[in-house]
């Protein structure tokens, strides 16, 4: 994008004042290099978001922003229900509550190294990944509804983890306000045997070595030490979330004129929060959040089973679990007034600062962990929310590297087999049911995650704590 289109607020904050139908400014947090690489569509989509009714303060984009559906991926926008605010299915996305959780293993990379191959093979065999894969659980109608209401709590109650896990998950593992009755039979049908599956695309289970610490105090509190190995799981609400996104987007497209909403882009389809359709979507979306939390919890259990077999006596304790594609009701102070706002984060992470009441007691002085997934073969990061972040983008940070190249281009540039061999020579073992899938997800097809994380840190959205480098990646 052309930098001349913005007024520069700081080295990492760029702004476009409202023009035309925009109700609020559009703001991008990124350095000049990242902005230059961004597609023009990011600003076009962000200015479209700024036209939506009831939007508060500004339409924001994170440093990893790229062209999405309606909202850019990496987009953040908050709406006030009392001022005609809307909820947008496109503002949440198809993969509702797609997110990351990271677990301690208590093992060092040196201890893991001799059994790395075995771990990789065992994890690949035990954690269902890829197109058409099914989990061990088959949910009947009652269990489906219980899962959609209970989230990770439902999974823990059935033996997939412990109560301690729930303390380290956003919403304590269970999103309130879920309405399984608003979830269609089609969506439930799609999910019947998909609990405990990774999915495909950019979803993964990765073993990572803590390579560098930037903030020793926060790292101590999160028990992160250089040389130790963690497990990160990136996946979402699977077919159920995709189907809810599809169905509500369509309903909102059809209903928009009736609400008097003029859509600059069909993907921005939305409904007033206070309307029956808005409420139905929120109930279904919250059920999908619970589906994602349950899914990551069951996968955690499967990973623990593998570690118990390969390294008897290890305990995989949860560091934290964050979601990326959500709309959540949160209190935020705007112009000195605290308001209840519906914050859409699409491809963005919540990043509450220290002392936020929803944080687990033992992390309250540190801030909320922000887990940034890299791409296969490149670094991932752990950050924490900051005090300054309270006044920036409603306590939000980036979520990953963000794609820099189309899948089509990636498959022309790389071959899956060659990539797997090259990464193996660098000590990174890839296991995937699809070599073309590996090529499409080549690390080179993504933005430089380190530049993205540095920009988020410099913008005060979140503070860098640790860098992780991959050892084993199970790709969907």
């Amino acid at each position, binding site marked *: 994008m052309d930098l001349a289109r913005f007024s520069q607020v700081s080295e990492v904050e760029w702004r476009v004042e409202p023009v035309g139908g925009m109700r609020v400014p559009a703001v991008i947090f990124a350095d000049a290099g990242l902005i230059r690489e961004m597609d023009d569509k990011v600003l076009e989509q962000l200015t479209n978001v700024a036209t939506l009714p009831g939007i508060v303060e500004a339409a924001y984009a994170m440093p990893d922003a790229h062209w999405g559906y309606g909202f850019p991926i990496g987009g953040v926008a908050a709406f006030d229900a009392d001022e005609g605010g809307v909820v947008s299915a496109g503002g949440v996305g198809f993969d509702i509550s797609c997110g990351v959780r990271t677990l301690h293993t208590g093992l060092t990379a040196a201890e893991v190294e001799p059994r790395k191959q075995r771990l990789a093979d065992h994890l690949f065999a035990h954690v269902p990944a890829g*197109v058409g894969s099914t989990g061990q659980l088959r949910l009947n109608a009652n269990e489906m509804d219980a899962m959609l209401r209970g989230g990770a709590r439902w999974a823990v109650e059935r033996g997939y983890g412990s109560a301690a896990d729930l303390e380290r998950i956003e919403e304590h593992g269970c999103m309130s306000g879920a309405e399984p009755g608003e979830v269609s039979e089609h969506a439930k049908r799609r999910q019947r045997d998909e609990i405990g599956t990774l999915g495909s695309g950019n979803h993964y289970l990765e073993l990572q070595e803590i390579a560098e610490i930037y903030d020793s105090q926060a790292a101590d509190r999160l028990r992160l030490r250089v040389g130790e190995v963690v497990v990160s799981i990136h996946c979402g609400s699977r077919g159920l979330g995709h189907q809810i996104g599809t169905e509500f987007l369509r309903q909102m497209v059809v209903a928009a004129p009736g609400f008097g909403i003029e859509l600059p882009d069909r993907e921005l389809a939305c409904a007033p929060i206070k309307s029956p359709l808005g409420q139905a979507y929120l109930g279904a979306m919250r059920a999908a959040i619970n589906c994602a939390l349950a899914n990551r919890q069951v996968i955690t259990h499967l990973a623990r089973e593998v570690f118990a077999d390969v390294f008897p006596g290890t305990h995989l304790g949860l560091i934290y679990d964050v979601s990326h594609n959500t709309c959540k009701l949160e209190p935020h102070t705007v112009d000195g007034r605290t308001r209840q706002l519906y914050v859409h984060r699409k491809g963005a992470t919540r990043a509450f600062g220290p002392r936020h009441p929803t944080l687990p007691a033992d992390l309250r002085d540190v801030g909320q962990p922000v887990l940034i997934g890299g791409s296969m073969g490149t670094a991932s990061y752990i950050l924490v929310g900051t005090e300054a972040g309270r006044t920036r983008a409603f306590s939000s940070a980036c979520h990953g590297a963000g794609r820099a190249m189309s899948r*089509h281009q990636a498959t022309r540039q790389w071959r899956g087999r060659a990539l797997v061999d090259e990464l193996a020579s660098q000590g990174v073992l890839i296991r995937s049911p699809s070599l073309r899938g590996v090529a499409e997800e080549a690390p080179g097809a993504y933005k430089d995650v380190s530049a993205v994380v540095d920009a988020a840190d410099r913008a005060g959205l979140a503070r860098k704590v640790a860098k992780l480098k991959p050892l084993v990646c199970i790709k969907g």
Partner: protein
Amino acid sequence: MRPHWQHFPHGADIGVRGIGPTLAAAFEQAALAMTAVVTDPAGVVPREAVDVQCEAPDNEMLLVDWLNALVLEMAARHMLFARFEVNLEGHRLHGTAWGETVDPARHQPAVEIKGATYTELRVREDESDRWLAQCVVDV
């Protein structure tokens, strides 16, 4: 003209495009392009038929509905489809897809499709006897 399909690039996902002498043929080809996002359609055996029906206010939404009906059937039945037949009555569609259960070893499916979207959505008659139907699918 001979019906055919194409992919077109999108930043994060992929565009599917069907081209044919009739609207129905373009819809059939767009579905084939969608299969090709996942796997090589030539490797999918059309041994089992699945019927889908949909209805929409216009041709563009009908394309998205058709592709999404197939996404649902692919996901819920764990199937891949290789052959399609579309019959249209106004904006009402009756379609049949033939395919088989996913075999990861044989099909090497690259990615699953989350949904067809309204992005880059176009359905139109370009010239006489040349219909085009396209949109981006989220993967």
